[in-house]
Structures are given as C-alpha cells and as structure tokens.
C-alpha cells in the first residue's frame, strides 16, 4: 500500500486527482488499486529485444528495483494450457532474477510423473501460477542479453519502443 502510494505521488496526475476527489477516503482507496498493470513474468516470457543486428535478444534480463506480489485467482486449466506455450528456460531464469524460483524443476514435469497424486500436481501448478502471474515488477528495466540495450519499465509498463536507428 505504501509502495503504490509512493509511486502514485510521483505521477503528475496526483494534483488533478486530489482536486477532483474531495472524499479523502476515496483517494486512499484508489491509491491501493493504483497500477494494476505491473509487468508479470508471463508478459516477460513473450518479450525480446528486436534491435537491428541482434540475433539472440531473448530472454531479457530483469533488473527489478521494486517487486510486488499481488494475489491472483488460480486457474489450473489455464496454467496447464500455458505450460505448453511457455519458454520454460526463460521463465526459470526470470524467476531467479525476481527471487521467485521456489524450487521449480529444471524441466516441465509431465502429468504422468505425478501419477495419482493430484495434490502434488496442483501444488506444482500453484507454484507456477504464483511466479507467472502474482509476482509483478513495478520498477526497473529489462536488458538485452546480447547488446545490453536497456528497456525501461516506466510506471510499470515495459517500453519496447525502438529508436529510429535501431529498427
């Protein structure tokens, strides 16, 4: 709460909003829900450095200066679905960079490996869910592993725009 309030204060909109909202409780409530669109590891899994000449611009290294954990509703089916699409290596690397590795296995275990132990399997899925969708990077930057080009995370939005000479 204090974290997001700090970020909130720094935006230019704060004055406008305070003027608009006379009800201070309302202001505080809004602060608590400011910046819902923090970068999660799922989006990170899709992003790469596309600067001209860069061959291996993936995965981007996360340098986070501010990390938050937000609760998110668990949907087992969706996680299973995403396991087939994730770049697992990049995901594990990202997990380490944001200190959310939680002893995830080096390779995606097959459903059969858990046999009849439904609970164990769900535990694993929940771990993935947590790292993938609940850990959020509020501030920091992403760095291209090849060129070192930095992509700032401004106001929680990764800025992947390229300069004219980079495309």
């Amino acid at each position, binding site marked *: 709460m204090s974290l997001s309030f700090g970020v909130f204060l720094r935006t230019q909109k704060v004055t406008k909003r305070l003027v608009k909202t006379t009800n201070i409780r309302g202001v505080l409530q809004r602060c608590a829900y400011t910046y819902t669109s923090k970068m999660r590891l799922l989006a990170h899994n899709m992003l790469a450095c596309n600067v001209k000449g860069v061959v291996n611009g993936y995965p981007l290294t996360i340098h986070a200066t501010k990390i938050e954990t937000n609760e998110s509703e668990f*949907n087992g089916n969706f996680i299973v679905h995403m396991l087939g699409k994730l770049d697992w290596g990049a995901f594990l690397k990202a997990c380490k960079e944001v200190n959310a590795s939680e002893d995830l296995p080096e390779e995606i275990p097959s459903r059969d490996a858990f046999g009849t132990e439904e609970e164990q399997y769900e535990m694993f899925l929940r771990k993935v869910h947590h790292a993938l969708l609940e850990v959020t990077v509020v501030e920091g930057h992403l760095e291209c592993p090849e060129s070192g080009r930095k992509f700032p995370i401004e106001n929680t939005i990764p800025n992947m725009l390229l300069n004219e000479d980079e495309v």
Partner: protein
Amino acid sequence: MKPKQLESELQDLKTFSTPKQNLEQYATTPLLATRVLHVAAVEFDDIEEKSVIDLGVGTGVLAIGAKLMGAGHVLGIDVDRDALEECKENLETYEPELEVELCLMDVVELIRRYDDDEDEEEEDVEEEEGKSENVKRKDYVWPRADTVLTNPPFGTRRKGADVAFLAAAMKMAETAVYSFHKTSTREYIQKVAVKKLGAKSAKVVAEMKYGLKNQYGHHRKEEVEVFVDVWRIEPPPKAAKRDDNDDDAEMFEQNLRDLAANIEELQLSARQRKDKERNKNSNKNSNNRRRW
C-alpha cells in the same frame, strides 16, 4: 457474462481524452466490443482460459472485455504512452484489480522495416551454416498468444496501417485473429489475409455499424456511420519453437515480403492519382482564366 451485462460494463469506461489523428484513435464502441467478444467466446471458444493479446489496446475496451469474459491472461500492446495511461485508469476502476498487462511497442514500424531487414539478411545466408555467431535472425521475436483481438486503424491516414496491424496480429496469434475492417474493403482484406499472409481461413463473422463520433476537425457530420466487418482469421501454423523454420514459416515470410512490396505499390499509385487530380485542377483553372 451475458451480452447486455458486458455492454453495460464497458459503457462506463473512459475513452480517449485527446485522440491522436495520426494514429487514427477511435474508441471501440461497447456494442462493437461486445459483439466481437461474444462471437469469439461463445461461437469459437477463443477467449475463456486462453491467452489474449489486444493489439492497439488504446483505452482498453477489448482487453477489459476479454478479461471479463474469462480470458486467462490479457496483454495490451500500444504505441501511444498516453493511451496506455488512460487504459490503466480504466483498469483501476475495477475491484479487485483486473489483471491486464500493458506494453509499449510499435508493430507497424516493425512490419515495415521487416522488408529492408530481410534483404540484408539474405546476403549472409550462405555463410550462416554452422556458425552460430554469424547467424542472423530470420524474423523479429513477437509476443505470442492464442487469440489476438485488434481494432486496427482503418488505414485512411496512415496508408497500409490496417494491413500492417493484420500482419503483426497474424504473427502473434496461434489460433485466431479478430479484426475489424470497413465492409467496403472486404474483397481486399480477404485477398490480403489468404493470399499474402497465408491465412488458413478468413471469414466475416459479423457485420456491424460503427458510429464514429466527430472528434477530429476533418469530419463534417457530427457522427459518421461506417459499416464494418468483424473478421475471424486463422493464422498459418507456426513453428513449434522460436528458432525452427519449417516450410510454412518460410512461405509466410515470403508472403510478408510480397505484402510489403504491395503496400509500397499502393502508396505509389495513390500518390500518382493525387498528382493527376492536381494536374486536372490546374488545367481547369487555366481554362477558366482564358474564358475571362
């Protein structure tokens, strides 16, 4: 969620406070968003528990709608920082928070530059075998999702922007692309999607009226009604891994190169047409002068 419910949810969202003409920012109307989301969710099961990208997210109507319809994950991409800020404000009005991730990216630029990039890469093709250091990338690395929703610019201001959006959407989508285009361009879109971009199928799944409010000076009427088609386009199959390049992917790339050439041609012919008109006008003027 029922269509009526979804529509009224989307009704309260804020739209562009200062729309940018060069980006052709028109807010997706709640009715239009509801229609496409319902077709996608109910008829084709492309939303629920799926990952979704909203390309050109703007103030987030489609992204928020998709999330409300049960999408597993939504990523909103836009080139305009101000629009993303406004989208964020819309997300904040929900409690608990709606999980939509946002990202700044210029896909039109990437698609346009793709052609130039390809030419340079071809020079290196022969020596690339075996030497990983010299291997040049075949394509940009695009974000991927099951379904891509996009309300693209109609391409009247930035020629070819609509097709560039479509090309980018097809790179990102694994199952389907939903896109809006003017009904008057139906044949052209069909041709582009299937022949140029190698789509498995391209179908108009709904026809709608799109009421564009007069937000820019160049419109004479207060509201202009445009007939739009809602397209569902199945992209060509993608290589399983990022590095693999099978025949389909190569064919797709070839098609994309053709497309870029085609866009240039169109721009050229448009320019020529304009020149002709200008000539005609100046002729008329000179005739008038003689008469007087």
